[in-house]
């Protein structure tokens, strides 16, 4: 077992990066759950690979490529949804897999041209390789995301409850929805290094879903999911270092364990209450 008071700097960096992620996945994940956007998150994540490949080819930051492709996907989805002849999940299925396939093609083309991209690190994350410049970028992005999110929260709650009521109350529904999609793309960019493309949606969904189990109000759910995501990061990192698990999957499994433990406890509790009230 390692001594947590004598951690190497790479562990501190990893922990800091995980915390940056926890700060943003909780709030945005809550809204993703309210608005049933899990599949959209997945689509953005799949498309992120294309963004990374294009960014590497253009010798830009991978994060910039991810955000750019996220915006393209959001615009495409907006336009396709307006046509009204196909449902959103079908459209997302088309976008998600087209983007992933295109990403793999671009990746192989640029690899054949001599660019060195470690596909595995993008698919599953590489938290222990986070360096100082990554951290600066991640916290910068997290700050911007939270700043915009806090301005948007009441509108997001409002349109999640009922879009028409929100519209009559003067909420610019389309604008809010669009900005939220861009924020999600930014979160995916932040999460890329931590858990990788394949597991990003898990971190958006699981802590927020766990928070839903006991939350009474939207704001409580947002705050609790940050806390739960942070606990999952710490547990995941700890188990990864202790037993040499891959870090990203260890964080996701920790989050799932929290979910199932709480689910079982709360179910037993409500059953007990039911039997008491039945007597």
């Amino acid at each position, binding site marked *: 077992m390692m001594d947590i008071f004598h951690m190497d700097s790479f562990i501190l960096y990893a922990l800091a990066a995980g915390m940056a992620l926890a700060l943003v996945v909780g709030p945005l994940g809550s809204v993703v759950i309210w608005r049933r956007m899990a599949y959209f998150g997945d689509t953005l994540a799949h498309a992120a690979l294309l963004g990374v490949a294009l960014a590497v080819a253009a010798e830009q930051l991978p994060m910039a490529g991810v955000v750019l492709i996220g915006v393209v996907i959001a615009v495409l989805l907006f336009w396709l949804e307006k046509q009204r002849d196909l449902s959103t999940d079908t459209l997302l299925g088309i976008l998600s897999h087209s983007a992933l396939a295109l990403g793999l093609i671009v990746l192989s083309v640029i690899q054949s041209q001599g660019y060195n991209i470690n596909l595995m690190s993008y698919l599953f994350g590489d938290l222990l390789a986070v360096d100082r410049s990554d951290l600066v970028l991640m916290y910068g992005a997290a700050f911007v995301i939270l700043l915009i999110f806090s301005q948007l929260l009441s509108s997001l709650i409002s349109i999640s*409850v009922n879009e028409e009521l929100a519209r009559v109350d003067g909420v610019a529904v389309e604008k809010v929805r669009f900005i939220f999609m861009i924020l999600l793309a930014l979160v995916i960019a932040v999460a890329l290094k931590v858990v990788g493309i394949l597991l990003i949606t898990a971190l958006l969904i699981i802590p927020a879903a766990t928070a839903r189990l006991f939350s009474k109000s939207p*704001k409580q759910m947002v705050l609790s999911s940050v806390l739960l995501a942070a606990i999952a990061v710490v547990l995941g990192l700890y188990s990864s270092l202790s037993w040499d698990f891959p870090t990203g999957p260890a964080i996701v499994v920790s989050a799932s364990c929290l979910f199932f433990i709480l689910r079982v406890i709360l179910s037993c509790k409500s059953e007990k209450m039911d039997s008491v009230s039945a007597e």
Partner: protein
Amino acid sequence: MIEQTDQAGTLLLTAENIGFSVRGKTILTDVSLQLHSKEIITLIGPNGAGKTSLIRILLGLSHATTGRVKREENLRIGYVPQRIQVPDVMPLRVCDFLNVAGLYRMDQCQQILEEVNCDYLLYSPMQNISGGEMQRVLLARALLKMPQLLVLDEPASGMDIIGQQSLYETIRNIRDKHDCGVLMVSHDLHLVMAATDRVICLNTHICCTGHPDDVSEHPEYLKLFGDAIEGLALYSHHHDHEHDLQGNIVASEHCHSCEHNQDMK
């Protein structure tokens, strides 16, 4: 159309020659109306008459194909939809729902719920309240905005007679207290009569409009008021133009186009 109102209310909203069609199907043609403060207007008409389309256009949720809607500047509209379904995945208490934007204090929420006789619901989850309670909570939410115009889409649907009566009474009290204009859509003709200043009968176009106040002074009406079936029959009587229709309202095209009112029964 010449509009006159004996109320001292100010003009809130004007609709001019509204036409609306969806995929070639005509929903509304040439609908003009004015809404004033302190006035309760009820929109009635058979299913598919375009009532919901019309209020959606007035609210700005849909755009009219032809004609235009003019709202007073910065008009505060409180909207009470027929019903809403709060997703189960959202933890939301009544107080959170009332105060989504975080603009009000808890005691204001409490007070507004008292006004609609639902103050015991303050901390209840939105998913746990009944249909009738939902209507009142939706009404409370609309009232928190201090609306100048209150728009209600079938506020009493799915309620029993007692519930409906008390809801209409609440709406009337609200009008008296807040001096707002009220536009509601309703099927419950007999009960609405008592709580309405003007009835607009819609069936794609405006068939006729009238002052039920005058009707309600009719001794036969007073005798029959509260009796659902007779009340309904009397309403039709008002419709079949043997009754004086306060000529100031009815334009020529209305008079012979009311065969639709048979559908409403």
